[in-house]
């Protein structure tokens, strides 16, 4: 309650004190523009991060169901070997589930190659085991060695493993996005600090006059801090709105398939809420940066 009251008092300010700071000036425009541009970039970085995050998750899920083991053996040994392979898989860390495919399952799998009429039961075709991984997955090389030793007819085919680097890539992209957001935040803070310092230096005369007529440090600093915080918040708001509009307008591909998330680079549902964080965050950065700059300037000019 008290914090709210203080924030309100800050926003309303002391119109008398505010008049003492020259209203316009390039440093003020610079602040508005900088925070707008940075907010715009931040929206994009945010979208990139969130989109790559979702991508990494989905592809990660797919990865889990990515391997098959094929057992080719004379007809009388095939059942034994299948059981042996399943035993090996049971004791392999990282394997959540393993299941031998039925004839029907195999027919569906082979349909693209041979059409629906393949006489599966009359052919010497191998038995397939579907392996579902969990967590970080299993050690494919290790598993291959064990199978070689215990089930001579088994071949491990993790045919979707090529996607793993893609998932990693998406994860990295997400990390890169967050890094960019951090960088943008830091750069914004530094730029607003410098702009505030430049404004304070340019207004050394204002400070001298205010001091001469008996104004207290808080009164002087307050006027500057308020101006810069409000301008930075306004700029960030404008930049965020522009960024969000651009995201909305940006043509999006594929629709809702697994790649659509990256293609559209859009945000979905609750994720839009994240963008609401940008303007107050920029205002907070501006507030802290300007207050520090004002205190230092007033100390120096004393």
């Amino acid at each position, binding site marked *: 309650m008290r914090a709210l009251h203080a924030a309100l008092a800050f926003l309303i300010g002391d119109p008398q004190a505010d008049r*003492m700071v*020259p209203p316009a000036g390039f440093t003020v425009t610079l602040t508005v523009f900088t925070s707008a541009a940075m907010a715009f970039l931040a929206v994009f970085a945010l979208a990139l991060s969130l989109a790559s995050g979702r991508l990494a998750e989905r592809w990660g899920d797919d990865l889990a169901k990515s391997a098959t083991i094929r057992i080719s053996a004379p007809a009388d040994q095939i059942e034994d070997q299948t059981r042996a392979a399943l035993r090996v898989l049971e004791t392999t860390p990282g394997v959540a589930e393993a299941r031998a495919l039925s004839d029907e399952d195999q027919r569906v799998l082979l349909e693209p190659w041979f059409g629906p009429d393949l006489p599966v039961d009359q052919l010497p075709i191998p038995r397939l085991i579907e392996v579902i991984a969990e967590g970080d997955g299993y050690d494919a090389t290790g598993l291959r060695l064990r199978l070689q030793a215990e089930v001579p007819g088994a071949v491990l085919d993790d045919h979707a493993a090529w996607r793993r680097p893609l998932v990693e890539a998406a994860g990295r992209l997400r990390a890169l996005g967050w890094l960019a957001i951090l960088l943008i935040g830091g750069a914004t803070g530094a730029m607003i600090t410098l702009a505030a310092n430049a404004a304070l230096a340019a207004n050394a*005369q*204002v400070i*001298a*006059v205010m001091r*001469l007529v*008996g104004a207290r*440090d808080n009164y002087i600093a307050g006027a500057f801090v308020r101006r810069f915080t409000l301008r930075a918040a306004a700029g960030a708001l404008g930049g965020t709105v522009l960024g969000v509009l651009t995201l909305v307008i940006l043509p999006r591909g594929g629709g809702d398939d697994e790649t659509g998330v990256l293609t559209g680079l859009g945000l979905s549902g609750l994720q839009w809420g994240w963008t609401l964080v940008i303007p107050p965050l920029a205002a907070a950065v501006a507030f802290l940066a300007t207050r520090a700059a004002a205190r230092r300037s007033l100390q120096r000019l*004393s």
Partner: protein
Amino acid sequence: MIELENVAYSYGYAGGELLTEISLKLAPGSFHFLTGPSGAGKTTLLKLLYGALVPTAGHLRLWGQDIRAMSRDDIAILRRKVGVVHQDCRFLDHLPVAENVALPLTVSHQGGPDQAQNLSDLLGWVGLTARADALPPELSGGERQRAALARAVIMSPEIVLADEPTGNIDWEMSQRLLHLLVELNRMGKTIMIATHDLQLIRAAKSQVQARVLRISNRRVQLAGADL
């Protein structure tokens, strides 16, 4: 109200102390002139008196408080009792003259209706009524000095420290400004004027009992009857 005891001041460059062994007491209701050659330290002494500089040696007490024990905020509050005319008159260049003159009232939250009357009387007396809405950079040199004097006295401060307030002003107007300060002095206020204008000092001496201090050889001395 302001006491200096053996005060010395040095800007810290070669040449040593600029002012030394200064002992002085500004009693309420006194009227002082401060003279001395250019570069003698008149402005420096005035800055010591209103706490813009801190003595490098000795004791300076403002209304009984030692300046070294005061925070910046204490000094800010104290400034409201001191009217200062700077040698290079500085203003808030984006606010009109009238608002600049009323600045001490604004800062101490005292802008009432009787103050408004006061303000327009004062602007009339220093001859700035016609320029009340101008911005400070649009003023002539003499107009700036008059605005600065008006700003210094608008709060009826207990002490007025004026640094060369008539350097750019013609004789008639100087007389009017002097009259204003003499009136304030008669109301019990303390006045100190740093000036090179000997004619002004003579004119004042015919109206009030003024002491003339002279900075020479780094010390403050009472000037003889040669003025």
